[in-house]
């Protein structure tokens, strides 16, 4: 074989270039020469020129001007030119280029060439870049070659057929009968191609799969031949006879035996034989064993065989080779749901793999460990998992943290343990936890009333140490705000008593408020906590007052609003302050996000991304908590059930005319004060800054009421992100349907409607508090209204 001298000289020249710039210069010169050569008529060095161009292409430089040359070379009668031409076609052309169609004819001709190596070039190129049209065109030709040619061509035609079937599924019917007959061939290459083709056909069409089930005995026969045959020099790899074919047949058997008793029975013996006889000292043997195990676990195998398979995986887990351990864990992951006990036996080894150096192995071990946590092993597993969390690679931290939380929630042996675990996670990986952890933890703490003292002490100490982990700081602030009095009292059964003065607490909170590490949400928490302490502690109320008034001119809108409200609470509503800031009631545990009546049934945690999309800066949990806060003022101990509307789950609905009919009925929207009891079915409940909200009711049943809220915008700016949240008294059930949209175009062009279904079985005095949020001219507006009576008939 004579190497292409001009090509090698060019490669040498390019490699000797010392800088990128020099290399570009050499390549530009070469490309210019190549282009000139292409334009010349037939000359001897054509294949060398194209080869040079392909080299340049591999370095990353543009080579599209060679496409036509490929087409010409493919049509050449010379084998050397055809060879490079087809290589060029595979590298430079793909089905998206127009030039690829031009080679269809050449391929067609070459498929029936007298020389099998030319045929092979055509087949290879077709299988590599044949487009759907080319495939449809040439499929009959491929079928002919599949049936009547030598084994060299047959094996290539089989893989070509696979490509065709992948591109044009209908042509599967054309190849099915031929594929079946190919299984009788002796040549391994053809057999392999046939098995791949049958696998592809079965994968696409269930009817074909049913028909091919009849081939199971033949496949079993072939496998047996491979497994028990003696040494065959042509196909032997480290003592295994043709492992590639074995693995392929096992995969096909898996597809055929899935969900089918008869087929699974027929292959039982064979699988047992392969599993026991295959030598597992080298990777090859393990590859075959691995495939066997996957097949056994996927078909309806008998229990003895399943046990054998799991044992093989257990052996893999103890293998020195990291790859084998990785494979074992991947497979165990698949069966941990169905064969849980069998996998539990290997828990020790799996947990050890958490300490492996390799990141891939660590990831697999983490997933598997989390799946193996149960009520009996929770304490020991959690120790290991927490240890892992402190040293795990950053990309696994979030997954590990959320896994730990789930496990802790399901199997916590005691409340204190649960809280400790969560705190531990927050201190080690606080930055990587999901956002709903904070409200979840707060709920947990509130519900564990006997541990309030312990918790607040622990959190206070954690806060003193480190204020960079936002989730931890938020929870700590909230707790200090709620239970600050317990902190000052100093006595606590669970931990050593520590003397904490009121000033210390306020110092801690102020540090959080002023630190540049604190996010706006965290600062909001800290400010509210400071405010709450004004009722819990006795001496430093003035200090609190001054802190709060400072923030009345803060740049952050949210903080400013809160500070102003709290200031008002000090000045005008001081009589209400105690009631407003009293201890939080126990939050009813409904669902992870404790929502009730979300329109699409999704919990609050889904709300966060929705709000962010609409440009709302508030934390969803804060809104929930704030509504709780603000509802404290009335005589009835309102246990509000909160509903929030999620807008995005439905695709962005432009202001539709879904409520169009209702709008007509509502007529004009005159500004009327909140009417007490009007006979009119609609009333305006809110009108400010051009935004108007009206309400109309319709009695559905004895206790049911359908309320329709309609919003409109009479300003001349567009309003976006319009959302409504509602709260009702304790015994009333609330269900909010999806709103018609979330944007209000200016000048009353269109309206947004929201339907709310209320059920008042105890016939309490019906009230509703509605919070309106929207964005106008780039700034967010928030307002709350209370509806004390509904117009009813």
């Amino acid at each position: 074989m004579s190497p292409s001298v001009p090509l090698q000289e060019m490669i040498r020249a390019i490699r000797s270039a010392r800088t990128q710039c020099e290399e570009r210069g050499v390549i530009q010169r070469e490309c210019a020469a190549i282009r000139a050569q292409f334009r010349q008529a037939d000359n001897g060095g054509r294949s060398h020129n194209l080869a040079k161009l392909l080299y340049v292409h591999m370095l990353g430089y543009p080579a599209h001007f060679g496409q036509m040359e490929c087409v010409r070379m493919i049509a050449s009668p010379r084998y050397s030119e055809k060879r490079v031409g087809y290589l060029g076609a595979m590298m430079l052309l793909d089905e998206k280029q127009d030039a690829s169609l031009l080679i269809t004819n050449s391929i067609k001709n070459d498929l029936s060439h007298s020389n099998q190596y030319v045929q092979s070039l055509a087949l290879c190129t077709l299988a590599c870049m044949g487009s759907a049209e080319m495939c449809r065109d040439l499929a009959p030709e491929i079928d002919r070659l599949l049936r009547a040619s030598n084994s060299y061509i047959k094996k290539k035609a089989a893989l070509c057929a696979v490509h065709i079937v992948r591109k044009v599924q209908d042509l599967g019917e054309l190849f099915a009968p031929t594929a079946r007959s190919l299984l009788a061939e002796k040549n391994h290459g053809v057999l392999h191609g046939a098995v791949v083709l049958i696998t592809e056909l079965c994968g696409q069409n269930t009817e074909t799969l049913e028909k091919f089930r009849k081939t199971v005995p033949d496949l079993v026969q072939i496998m047996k031949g491979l497994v028990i045959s003696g040494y065959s020099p042509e196909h032997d790899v480290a003592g295994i006879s043709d492992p590639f074919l074995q693995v392929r047949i096992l995969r096909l058997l898996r597809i055929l035996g899935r969900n089918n008793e008869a087929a699974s029975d027929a292959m039982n013996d064979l699988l047992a034989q392969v599993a026991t006889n295959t030598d597992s000292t080298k990777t090859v043997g393990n590859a075959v064993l691995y495939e066997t195990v996957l097949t056994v676990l996927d078909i309806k195998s008998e229990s003895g065989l399943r046990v054998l398979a799991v044992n093989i995986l257990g052996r893999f887990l103890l293998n020195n080779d990291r790859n084998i351990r990785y494979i074992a864990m991947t497979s165990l992951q698949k069966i941990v749901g169905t064969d849980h006990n069998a996998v539990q036996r290997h828990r020790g080894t799996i947990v050890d793999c958490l300490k492996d150096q390799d990141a891939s192995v660590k990831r697999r071990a983490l997933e598997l460990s989390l799946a193996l946590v149960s009520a009996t092993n929770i304490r020991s597993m959690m120790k290991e998992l927490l240890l892992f969390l402190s040293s795990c690679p950053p990309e696994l931290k979030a997954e590990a943290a959320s896994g730990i939380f789930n496990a802790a929630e399901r199997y916590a042996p005691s409340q204190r343990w649960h809280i400790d675990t969560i705190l531990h996670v927050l201190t080690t990986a606080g930055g990587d936890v999901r956002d709903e952890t904070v409200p979840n933890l707060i709920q947990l703490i509130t519900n564990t009333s006997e541990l309030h003292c312990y918790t607040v002490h622990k959190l206070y100490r954690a806060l003193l140490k480190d204020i960079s982990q936002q989730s931890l700081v938020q929870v700590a602030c909230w707790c200090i705000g709620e239970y600050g009095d317990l902190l000052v009292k100093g006595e606590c059964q669970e931990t050593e008593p520590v003397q904490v003065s009121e000033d210390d607490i306020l110092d801690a909170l102020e540090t959080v408020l002023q630190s540049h590490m604190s996010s706006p949400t965290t600062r909001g928490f800290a400010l509210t906590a400071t405010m709450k302490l004004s009722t819990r502690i006795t001496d430093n109320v003035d200090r609190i007052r001054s802190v709060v008034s400072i923030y009345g001119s803060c740049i952050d809108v949210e903080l400013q609003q809160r500070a102003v409200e709290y200031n008002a609470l000090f000045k005008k509503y001081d009589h209400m302050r105690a009631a407003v800031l009293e201890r939080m009631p126990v939050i009813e545990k409904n669902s992870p996000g404790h929502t009730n009546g979300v329109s699409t049934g999704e919990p609050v945690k889904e709300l966060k991304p929705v709000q962010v999309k609409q440009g709302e800066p508030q934390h969803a949990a804060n809104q929930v908590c704030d509504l709780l806060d603000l509802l404290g003022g009335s005589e009835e101990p309102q246990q509000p059930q909160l509903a929030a509307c999620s807008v995005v789950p439905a695709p962005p609905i432009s202001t539709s005319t879904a409520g169009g009919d209702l709008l007509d009925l509502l007529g004009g929207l005159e500004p009327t004060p909140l009417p007490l009891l009007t006979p009119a079915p609609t009333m305006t409940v809110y009108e400010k800054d051009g935004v108007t909200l009206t309400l109309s009711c319709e009695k559905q049943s004895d206790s049911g009421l359908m309320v329709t809220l309609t919003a409109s915008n009479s300003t001349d700016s567009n309003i976006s992100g319009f959302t409504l949240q509602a709260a009702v008294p304790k015994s009333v059930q609330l269900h909010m349907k999806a709103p018609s949209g979330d944007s209000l175009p200016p000048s009353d062009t269109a309206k947004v409607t929201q339907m709310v279904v209320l059920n008042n079985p105890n016939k309490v005095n019906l009230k509703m508090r509605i919070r309106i949020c929207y964005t106008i001219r780039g700034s967010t507006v928030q307002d709350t209204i209370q509806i004390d009576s509904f117009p009813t008939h």
Partner: protein
Amino acid sequence: MMRFLLLFSRQGKLRLQKWFTPMSDREKKKIIRDMTTMVLARQPRSCNFLHWKDLKIIYKRYASLYFCLAVENQENELLALEVIHRYVELLDKYFGNVCELDIIFNFEKAYFILDEFLMGGEIQETSKQIVNRSIEASDMLQEDDSSEWYEVELFG
């Protein structure tokens, strides 16, 4: 099926690229960048399997070259390692103690060998001897061809 096979040096220079599904040039470039970064960042004795998007990446280092094979999720990773090894054996037999320079200066031969071993993302021939014999025969055909041309030239 296999999606692509890449060979690159320890400095990240690409030596061979075979794509088994159609992709735009830009996508190819991005994948090459991603693969080289991911694989070159691995520790020396780590696991040879990676996850990338919805594919499994199997890589192995032979001397100064990294062989990187991407397969779909249902493929057998251990067998993929064997596929890479088989290809290296074929190259070794052909070039005699193959090294990176052989692949650089005779890249088209490396492709021809690959095209006799794999096709359409699947294994084409499982016997080493048959692949070697096919390559030898094709080479001889190419030689005959050139000598034919040479003869033609002689006669004007």
